């Protein structure tokens, strides 16, 4: 017979020990899922097709979305710190998206899933596919870019949060994992905000989360042999539909060419008397 006081000490120690063990287990097996998107290279200034049906991406250089690259880098760093054990990268889109998966592998991802589709899926469609992958893979953390630089939607991570019921830390400039929590510092309009999320959780990367490394040649070679599963949306029982139709695309209003002024005095005179924006 254990006295009540002793029992409560025992219970508290056992609770802490159990909790410690679960946390260790989670840490020791944490898998990170990183969805990446193939987009136009960020240096390319896209042009609208003459018939205004879309932008012209023929013969345009493509690359991994810069924010996705930051997400991959963060996952690799978490693995290097011994916090994560496996990095699974997934891309959804045309078959050539394999190039972006291989790039992520060269940077340190362990294996890949490529889901090919003929039509560009919507954010919600992508989120539904990712939800199916989350169910299958059970990652401890999903790291995404905060937005893709083509559609500029900034939606997928948050939508995946809703579908999985996970907490979300968007626009992250700092991430640390402690036990069963993720602490995320977010870039918000007024400055920085820090929140704590219960894992598993979703984090979307902002520009200053890290500076991605360059892949080394031996790693690029090694990446070619890393395992890649090729799938279609129907393998996950997801039918892609899009309730938002693109009606037309137009170039933005061009600014009329301005003039060069020769001096500060001339500039101030023009701003006052010509542009009338200074009084």
């Amino acid at each position, binding site marked *: 017979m254990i006295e009540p006081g002793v029992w409560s000490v025992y219970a508290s120690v056992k609770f802490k020990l159990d909790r410690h063990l679960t946390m260790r287990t989670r840490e020791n097996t944490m898998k990170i899922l990183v969805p990446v998107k193939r987009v136009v290279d960020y240096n390319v200034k896209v042009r609208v097709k003459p018939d205004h049906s879309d932008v012209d991406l023929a013969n345009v250089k493509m690359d991994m979305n810069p924010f996705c690259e930051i997400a991959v880098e963060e996952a690799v760093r978490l693995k290097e710190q011994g916090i994560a054990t496996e990095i699974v990268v997934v891309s959804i889109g045309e078959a050539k998206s394999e190039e972006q998966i291989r790039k992520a592998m060269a940077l340190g991802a362990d294996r890949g899933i490529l889901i090919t589709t003929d039509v560009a899926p919507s954010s919600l469609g992508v989120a539904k596919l990712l939800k199916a992958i989350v169910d299958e893979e059970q990652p401890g953390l999903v790291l995404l870019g905060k937005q893709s630089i083509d559609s500029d939607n900034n939606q997928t991570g948050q939508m995946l949060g809703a579908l999985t019921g996970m907490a979300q830390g968007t626009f992250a400039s700092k991430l640390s994992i402690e036990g069963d929590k993720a*602490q995320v510092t977010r870039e918000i309009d007024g400055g920085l905000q820090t929140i704590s999320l219960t894992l598993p959780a979703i984090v979307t990367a902002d520009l200053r989360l890290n500076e991605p490394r360059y892949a080394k040649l031996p790693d690029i070679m090694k990446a070619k042999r890393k395992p890649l599963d090729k799938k279609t949306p129907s393998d996950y029982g997801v039918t892609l539909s899009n309730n938002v139709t693109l009606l037309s695309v137009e170039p933005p209003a061009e600014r009329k060419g301005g003039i060069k002024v020769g001096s500060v005095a001339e500039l101030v005179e023009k701003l006052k008397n010509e542009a009338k924006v200074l009084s």
Partner: protein
Amino acid sequence: MSILIIAEHDNAVLAPVTSHVVTAALAIGDSIDVLVAGSGVGAVADEAATLSGVGKVLLADDAAYGHQLAENLADLVAELGKNYTHILAPATTSGKNFMPRLAALLDVEQISDILSVESADTFKRPIYAGNAIATVQSSDAIKVITVRGTAFEACALDGSATVEAVSGAHDKGISSFIGEDLAKSDRPELTGARIVVSGGRGMQNGDNFKLLYTLADKLDAAVGASRAAVDAGFVPNDMQVGQTGKIVAPDLYIAVGISGQIQHLAGMKDSKVIVAINKDEDAPIFQVADYGLVADLFDVLPEFEKAL
């Protein structure tokens, strides 16, 4: 059409961008409610009641909404929003955070960052860093939309809506607020200022930004920065103007020591008048500038300030 607008605020005052969203909503329909969700936000609700054209202000006052945590806010709006045809919020970091989560809870797409309302289901929005403008049409039963504040005028403040408290707290308990580090400034807010003075890599360091602050104070202007200046640590992230930072459209934008990458142009090219000051005469910023001055900014800035 019945429209619900989610108000932006800091629990103390209503953010002006909310009144720009009302103008976008009025282009869609005239039955407009505004939700004020926060902690201790009675005064904000009263302020929202003066937004012209608003019929009813819904007040959700609970600690669970105090920091606009997306998990709690999206659950609340998903419940309240079911009977509306449109749900609108500003495309601020707060709107961008919870609105897509809300859209997925409602099983609909989100239309991000609209620039104009063509009809109740058709909108224009920028893609590819503003290098193309897409016209999109939504067939979703509920249209979840974020609005670019600078693309719409502010509405009048002569309304007298009723304020109605909504009950029930949604606290998902999976996220919590730890702290924040907010910029304090007496200068106008960047996205609402009439004049913006921005500095880039050419400023060389954070100390030199003082030259811009002095000029800005003389002009009653806000101070912004390019990504390069923020990445280099000259100034904090909340000053970044660009594709993924703040979008500004002031009467006068003065770009100082900014080269003018397309990502920066995406954040300021709708300004009415653009001035570029750069010693590199080939800098792309001159292609969008109404007035360009090829000169050393360290000579120009003191002279500019004196000339005012």
